[in-house]
């Protein structure tokens, strides 16, 4: 089974993140980048599915697919250390500033070339938080979208998941090839072992440019984006509120505040 996990490198959510003044794109240089936390669940799920396939006597391979600047190689290295077999890194200055629509176009072009039985995405990235990539890839590749999974079962070419909904879950099934996305807590992502870290150094990472992937440079990057940032500002700090120490009347004080604001 050919499993491809889409991974994005994002700025550390614990750091102060900013947009660049010049073009409103993400300032990736000023903060540490790491694997989008929610993609770690996708990697882990891919590894577990591959392990189950191998245990049943089938072939399975996990490929990491990343689009991003040179620094994104760090995230690829980590995914390989966790146990993925190989990686494809789309690296081209022309990709900078791509929006979700053109990113999905690029990834789909590459996926169509590499082939896949199962594509796995995290539910969203912690920077843009759009949560659209699995849906966009399914639409572009014309394969079933089996997304927002909190549980995945594969049986031959059938796939069954629990899709989380606003008020519970759906059981959804389809056949492979398919695109899935997984939600946080579907599994417990493993830490790379020392052996894994050493092994990752020898694993193949294929770097692809736009030309390698046969992608029209006009369709991607800032110029190809269907959306644009008009302006951006730092949110002014909230006005300082009233903080009181509980002197045995803290509950009454909260109630008075609630009543003054007509919440009770």
């Amino acid at each position, binding site marked *: 089974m050919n499993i491809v996990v889409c991974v994005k490198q994002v700025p550390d959510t*614990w750091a102060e993140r900013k947009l660049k003044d010049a073009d409103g794109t993400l300032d990736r240089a000023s903060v540490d980048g790491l694997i989008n936390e929610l993609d770690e669940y996708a990697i882990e799920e891919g590894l577990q599915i591959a392990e189950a396939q191998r245990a049943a006597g089938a072939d399975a391979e996990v490929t990491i697919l990343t689009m991003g600047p040179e620094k994104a190689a760090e995230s690829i290295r980590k995914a390989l250390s966790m146990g993925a077999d190989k990686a494809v890194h789309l690296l081209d200055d022309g990709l900078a500033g791509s929006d979700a629509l053109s990113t999905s176009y690029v990834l789909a072009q590459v996926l169509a070339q590499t082939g896949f039985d199962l594509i796995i995405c995290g539910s969203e990235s912690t920077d843009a938080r759009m949560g659209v990539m*699995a849906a966009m890839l399914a639409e572009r590749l014309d394969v079933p979208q089996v997304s927002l999974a909190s549980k995945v079962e594969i049986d031959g070419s059938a796939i069954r998941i629990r899709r989380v*909904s606003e008020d519970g879950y759906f059981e959804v099934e389809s056949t492979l090839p*398919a695109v899935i996305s997984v939600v946080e807590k579907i599994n417990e992502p493993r830490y790379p072992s020392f052996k894994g870290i050493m092994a990752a150094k020898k694993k193949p990472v294929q770097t692809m440019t736009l030309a390698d992937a046969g992608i029209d440079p006009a369709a991607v990057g800032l110029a190809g984006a269907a*959306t644009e940032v008009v302006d951006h500002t730092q949110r002014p700090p909230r006005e300082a509120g009233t903080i009181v120490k509980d002197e045995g009347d*803290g*509950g009454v004080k909260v109630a008075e505040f609630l009543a003054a604001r007509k919440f009770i």
Partner: protein
Amino acid sequence: MAEILVLAEHVDDDVKKVTLELITLARRFGEPSVVWTGPGAEQAQARCAEYGAARVYVASDAVFDDYVVAPAAALLAQLVAEKSAVLVLLAGTAQGKEVAGRLAVKIDSGVLTDAVDLQPGDDGPVAEQSIFGGATIVHSRVRRGTPIVAMRPNAVAPEPSPGAAELSQVSLASEATGARVTNRVVAERGERPDLTEASIVVSGGRGTGGAEGFQIIETLADSLNAAVGASRAVTDAGWYPHQFQVGQTGKTVSPQLYMAVGISGAIQHRAGMQTSKTIIAVNKDPEAPIFELADFGVVGDLFKVVPQLLEEIGKRK
């Protein structure tokens, strides 16, 4: 007048509040047409009319219940073309955003998600988004195709304004394929409002000390007719179910009132609640960062403050 498509979110004939918000918002840009998939449109017509829907396109085929996301996107693409719609509005729920994404690919149009406001501009609608955990405010626009915008629930207040809400049957031209729904399970939530839609959210954190201690959060929420939220520390520890997590990797809420009880307010939590209109915090640590956001805060033991608050609320009812 230009037509604006609003994809309705509903449970049977019960229209979700976010849909009324979207109809209200659509009136800034043209004539709102609600797109209703599945059953319940006849019963919900009056409600759509009350908020100013000019039309309700009803697609009641079973396919909308049997398949997720793809049929709704296909129907919207069809209607955008047939009606020359100038804007598509969806709820910024996980499912709404997925439909928006597929639609964007289908009609090669720009998509903006999690907008907290949308205003007319010289070059089309301008969306306000609150990103990086609310630290940065961004205005963005779509520059190719028909703008598709997924609005965060509670972004605008629903305001009644009569409309005709004329029902018109439509059907999907293409056949549905893809992932089939075999079962739906609705979680026990009792009478509590939906977390992302609620006007009031009461969240509990590590300070509740455990699943048993967390019950006081539920009691307080119920006394205010509020939804219950939890910090990641709580859901990671298994004190409360994961789907109620508010924060960077959980739900983003922007209610009228957010009460953070026993929550220190780490950046990961603030990312999910920073745009709340009014924030109240109760925490025993005076240095807790949540107090920097709070309009009103009490430094004290939540197990003393909350029971007294419950008593006061009871007296005032």
